């Protein structure tokens, strides 16, 4: 029986889709059977970040409306064994799916896959409600900015109200140079404020822009800092204890063994 993990943030543009693509690919590279689901109906993007935009025939709305079978809607990523994408519909709007349908879809996917990653749209309205409907666990993505952390706090409250206890925090786009100068909140600052467990930290890395341009998730390039960070995060999700990456600055003090066990 697989596990459904929703990736959410409240605020837009903090890196939910990039995170979903990279954790999904990362888990598949570690031998897991994974499906990444784009729940951002009307603003489809996970397909381009994954580099699978030319292969779409059906989408998630077709699947829940039973226009096609689930198997027909899934796009197999030929580069990574066991990795699949269920794309969002681009021409419909968020009301095209109801939370109950999403729950049913998640339950069906759980029979087939080890991990089901749901890329939530920004906001806290219906699209978010759909994305969390079938989730067992949640990852909250934030960046070291006031607006993103504030929205993360709001979303954590909403997730807990939905019974999704202990969401895990992913801090994206940390700039070690700015943290060192005291011009950016550091990891401890954000954990202190949000009071949830840390899943991982991803540095602001040009390699992400380059890899997204190419449609190849950065986790496939282990020579990059961001690629390593996503690999570590994927391993933590699988229950391994992996130390935080040292970005060679004061954050290094924080490197301690993480005991983040997703379930098991």
């Amino acid at each position, binding site marked *: 029986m697989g596990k459904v993990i929703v990736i959410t943030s409240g605020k837009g543009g903090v890196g939910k889709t990039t995170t979903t693509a990279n954790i999904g690919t990362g888990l598949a590279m570690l031998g897991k059977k994974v499906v990444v689901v784009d729940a951002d109906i009307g603003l489809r993007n996970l397909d381009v970040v994954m580099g699978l935009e030319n292969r779409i025939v059906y989408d998630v709305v077709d699947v829940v409306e039973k226009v096609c079978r689930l198997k027909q809607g899934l796009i197999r990523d030929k580069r990574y064994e066991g990795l699949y994408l269920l794309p969002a519909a681009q021409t419909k709007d968020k009301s095209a799916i109801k939370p109950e349908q999403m729950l049913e879809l998640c339950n069906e996917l759980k029979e087939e896959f080890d991990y089901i990653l749901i890329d939530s749209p920004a906001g806290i309205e219906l699209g978010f409600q759909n994305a969390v409907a079938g989730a067992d666990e949640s990852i909250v993505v934030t960046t070291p*900015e*006031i607006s993103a*952390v*504030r929205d993360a*706090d*709001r979303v954590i*409250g909403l997730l807990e109200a939905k019974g999704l206890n202990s969401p895990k925090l992913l801090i994206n786009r940390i700039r070690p140079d700015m*943290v060192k*100068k*005291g*011009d*950016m*909140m*550091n990891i401890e*600052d954000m954990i202190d*404020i949000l*009071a949830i467990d840390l899943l991982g930290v991803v540095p602001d890395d040009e390699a992400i822009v380059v890899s997204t341009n190419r449609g190849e998730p950065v986790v496939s390039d282990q020579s990059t800092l961001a690629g390593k960070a996503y690999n570590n995060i994927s391993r933590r999700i699988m229950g391994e204890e992996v130390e935080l990456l040292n970005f060679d600055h004061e954050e290094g003090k924080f490197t301690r063994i993480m005991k983040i066990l997703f379930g098991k």
Partner: protein
Amino acid sequence: MDFLKMFSKSSKNSKNVAKERLKLVLIHDRADISPKFLQMLESDIVRVMSEYVEIDEEGLDVKMTRTKRESDGSSVPALVANIPIIKVKDRG
């Protein structure tokens, strides 16, 4: 260059400013208390207290913060009011 250094040292790190601002805004978000509500509460407290004491309204400070509940150590919203009293009114 030296001048710039001096300047940056004397001013607060911007991340501390961010952290302080964030903490304040989250206290309001989490307690679901608007500044308008707080204003109403403040004026009512002042009105009631004014019947008994003379208050220094200039030095008045009413704000939301968080405190640990003694029973289980969980963090709960708390109203902190600092109300300087000039003198107690003669209630004879």
